[in-house]
């Protein structure tokens, strides 16, 4: 919440690199969140691969500016592996401020995760998440 208050972004979603949602602010419908996460994970994977091919290291942040709204996508490294933060913002803030507070969030998360052992996701988690998300997507929940 501190990141959202400071950076004044309209929408923020924290997700795993697989596309699984961890936290969100600003969306009102769960279908929108899932679509955004699936797209964000795909964009992040594509950008990382382009970075590997061009520069030898994956690109970790991405910014698109529209007429009224902009998106910023950044990778957060934690003790539990890499996470992705997707933000949508308008002219209430700027890409400079979003990047500034993203860097602060990244430092805080890295500090909080220090000492925590990385645990790979289990197949049981994956399957139950997948079933729940599919059920939500097709309106069974």
């Amino acid at each position, binding site marked *: 919440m501190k990141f959202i208050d400071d950076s004044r972004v309209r929408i923020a979603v924290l997700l795993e690199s697989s596309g699984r949602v961890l936290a969100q602010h600003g969306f009102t419908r769960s279908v929108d969140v899932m679509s955004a996460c699936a797209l964000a994970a795909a964009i992040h994977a594509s950008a990382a691969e382009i970075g590997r091919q061009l520069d030898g290291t994956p690109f970790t942040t991405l910014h698109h500016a529209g007429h009224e709204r902009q998106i910023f996508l950044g990778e957060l490294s934690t003790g539990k592996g890499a996470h992705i933060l997707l933000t949508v913002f308008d002219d209430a803030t700027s*890409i400079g401020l979003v990047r*500034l507070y993203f860097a602060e969030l990244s430092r805080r998360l890295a500090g909080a995760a220090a000492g925590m052992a990385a645990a790979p996701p289990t197949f049981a988690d994956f399957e139950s998440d997948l079933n729940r998300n599919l059920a939500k997507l097709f309106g069974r929940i």
Partner: protein
Amino acid sequence: MTKTPYAELLAMLSRHRGVVGSFVVSERDGLAVDSNVQIGVHAEAVAALAASLHRKARLACGAAGCGVVTFLRLDAEKGGICAAGRDDLVLVTISEARANIGLLRVEMMRAAKALT
């Protein structure tokens, strides 16, 4: 690395006594276009926050019917920040308390006119 058109202007401002950094910042993006800062100055953070400050001052002056912001000065315990804008570009300096703000203001106002 290629010099930007603002390199000389920023070097001139940074030569003033007590000035520890100067930037040209895009107000809309909050990103530094060019900077001349001493070691230890967090250029990206200052650029983003100063651009936001200038934008809010411009909006406040507009709402109050004061017209266009020409110069912004923020005094703090150990120094201050000055900003002078033109269109989307803002010239920002960070100075220590010993800086001659009057002289710096004249130079910044003059330099801001050259921003394009």
